[in-house]
């Protein structure tokens, strides 16, 4: 028996997933497809790599992190695509930009040699690579999201760059254990409408089901309109994800430093 085709579908664009995938961000798409199916939501995935055209529109955009060499190639192209991506974000497209993808979705990234790579400008953040002596921010992280119903998120961070919010920037979360954007101000990631930038991988979406549901709901609202019946998803349990979340949260509490703001 083949299941009836879902009555509703979201259009997902994965950006540069052949090169921006170094921290297993593919797990985000795996979790999205599985969870959307549980909600009766179809997922059409379009993979857009270097040189490929962007589609007309998208309900959800995913981008992960890459190695330095690969990120330089992606940065050039993302800068050109910035206006389209910013227009999508302003129109409510849901986005998840992780680690290097988050940095490149900011205004610019200044590498260790002082060269500035322009970003897509979806988030009002800038990132500075510290000098060679500075330690990378590596470890388990637990942060509290300011979106209603999402609450605590857990993951693993591994980044050299320090990210700072600009005057129009809002943090995605507040760090409780770990380092976050820069290890100084307690902010983690950035949020603009339904677009989320973050340093958390792990992978992020599999073990943070509340955030995953929020992104699916946002993508549905973008596709079918606020208040439409097709845009609603019912709460449903996610037992495997919830247990993995609890286990990862316990590890972060045990192993990572409780965040203390740096007083200058």
């Amino acid at each position, binding site marked *: 028996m083949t299941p009836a085709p879902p009555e509703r579908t979201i259009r997902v664009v994965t950006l540069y997933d052949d090169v921006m995938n170094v921290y297993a961000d593919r*797990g985000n798409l*795996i979790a999205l497809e599985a969870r959307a199916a549980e909600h009766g939501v179809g997922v059409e995935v379009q993979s857009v790599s270097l040189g490929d055209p962007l589609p007309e529109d998208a309900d959800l955009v995913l981008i992960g992190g890459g190695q330095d060499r*690969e990120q330089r190639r992606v940065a050039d192209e993302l800068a050109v695509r910035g206006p389209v991506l910013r227009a999508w974000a302003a129109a409510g497209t849901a986005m998840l930009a992780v680690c290097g993808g988050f940095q490149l979705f900011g205004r610019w990234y200044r590498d260790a040699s002082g060269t500035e790579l322009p970003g897509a400008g979806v988030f009002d953040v800038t990132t500075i690579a510290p000098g060679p002596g500075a330690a990378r921010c590596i470890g388990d992280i637990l942060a509290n999201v300011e979106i209603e119903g999402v609450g605590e998120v857990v993951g693993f961070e*591994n980044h050299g760059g320090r990210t700072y919010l600009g005057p129009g920037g809002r943090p995605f979360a507040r760090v409780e254990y770990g380092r976050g954007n820069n290890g100084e101000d307690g902010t983690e990631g950035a949020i603009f409408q339904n677009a989320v930038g973050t340093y958390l991988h792990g992978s992020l979406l599999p073990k943070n089901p509340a955030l995953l549901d929020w992104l699916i709901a946002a993508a549905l609202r973008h596709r079918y309109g606020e208040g439409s019946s097709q845009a609603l998803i019912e709460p449903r349990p996610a037992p*495997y994800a919830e*247990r993995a979340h609890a286990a990862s949260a316990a590890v972060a509490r045990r192993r990572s430093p409780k965040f203390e703001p740096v007083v200058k």
Partner: protein
Amino acid sequence: MVAATARPSVRERAALILGRAAGTAARQLGRGGGTALPGLVAGVLAPRLLERLAQQAGQGVVTVTGTNGKTTTTHLIAAIFRAHGVQPLTNPSGSNLERGLVAAYVEDAEADGRIADAPSRVGVFEVDEAVLARLFSRLSPRVAVFLNLFRDQLDRYGEVDSVGEGWGGMLASAGPDCTLVLNADDPSIAQLAAGTRARVLMFGIDDPEARLAEAEHASDARFCRCGGRFAYEAIYMGHVGIWRCSSCGDRRPRAFVSARRVKLSPDGSRVEVDIDGAVVTLEIPMAGLYSVYNALAATAASYALGVPATTIARALAEAGPAFGRQERFEVEGRTVRVLLAKNPAGLNELLRALIAGSPEREPIHLLAMLNDGVQDGQDVSWIYDADIEVLAGRPMTVTCSGGRADDFALRWHLAGVDPAAVVPDTEAALDDALRRMPPGARLDVVATYTAMIDVREALARRAGVGAYWEKAER
């Protein structure tokens, strides 16, 4: 070699004695076998012990590095030399940082600091890929084996690219008295041949039947050093295959040691190998295509040092598994096989080896163990890069265990294989997994490094086999 028979100094002899005492004490306390402790103690007291070690091996030093297969390949090269009548001097069970190498010296040295029969011995050492650049000139190997370069424990190394760049710098100073044994099929390894004056001996697979039907996701080397993209005529695993650069035209070189016909089965492989025109058949008693690569690398390395092909084939057929690498135990009427999996490429290969040649209807019994210690990698994200989906739809039972059992269970669930049970504790998980399978069936344990140590100890006790340091050190 200038100071080949220089006597160790008084200080170095004292360091040896103290190092050995530390190892004995650690073993008597029953703590982890003490395989690295003697080296750590002696190395701190006498920092040039490593050079003494390298200089004493009269037949030269072989180093083995790469992300996956170091321990097994080192073990195979040592077995080949034994069969050839040359006693190897080797570091025990994956202890592959400087202290592990020094430990080998500490354990084998006489009280005066000399190693018995040193002029007739060969040093065979596995060296951590991130550490090799620092040790290369100090060991001055006659043969340096490079197996592969995959992503592994990014929380420890930073990025894959930086490891490859470190090797490139180190090889610029290698001369023609050194032979590099390189994997022709891994472009990030094969391209090391370009920037060196060392001799080069390539190994690889030339059998289109062994290719993957579909590319795996954990593929690392996508770009050539010229900046172009690699294209593949055949992919054997990850980014390993018959490659060429679409931009500069660099391509997979001819393999001097070439596997022409590969036949995989759940228990081992049979491979027809062409060594510079002469054909030998290798029977490899270890499952998986990755084991074939390890055997080819060991063949090339020992052939480069003058071991005849027939001796190599005989030694490989008789070689048992290295510590924790496809070791088998008989427990409660069932066979248990232990498989170390510490990164996506390694896990993908294990899963392929489990499927290879086994009938579709035959159930697979698996104990999947995920720990997150420093030696395992504290970041467990990598499980999402492994293509666990290849097992979906097969009849199987999976028990998830280890400190991150819940993370692993979620990964298996998302791959379409719901675990039969999630049991963090090792002993309880073994009980659970054994209970779920019929007598006579085989249980495969896939485990990260510290989980492998735990489960191996539990199995050895149940099977009545010695503890790990008793076996690992000789």
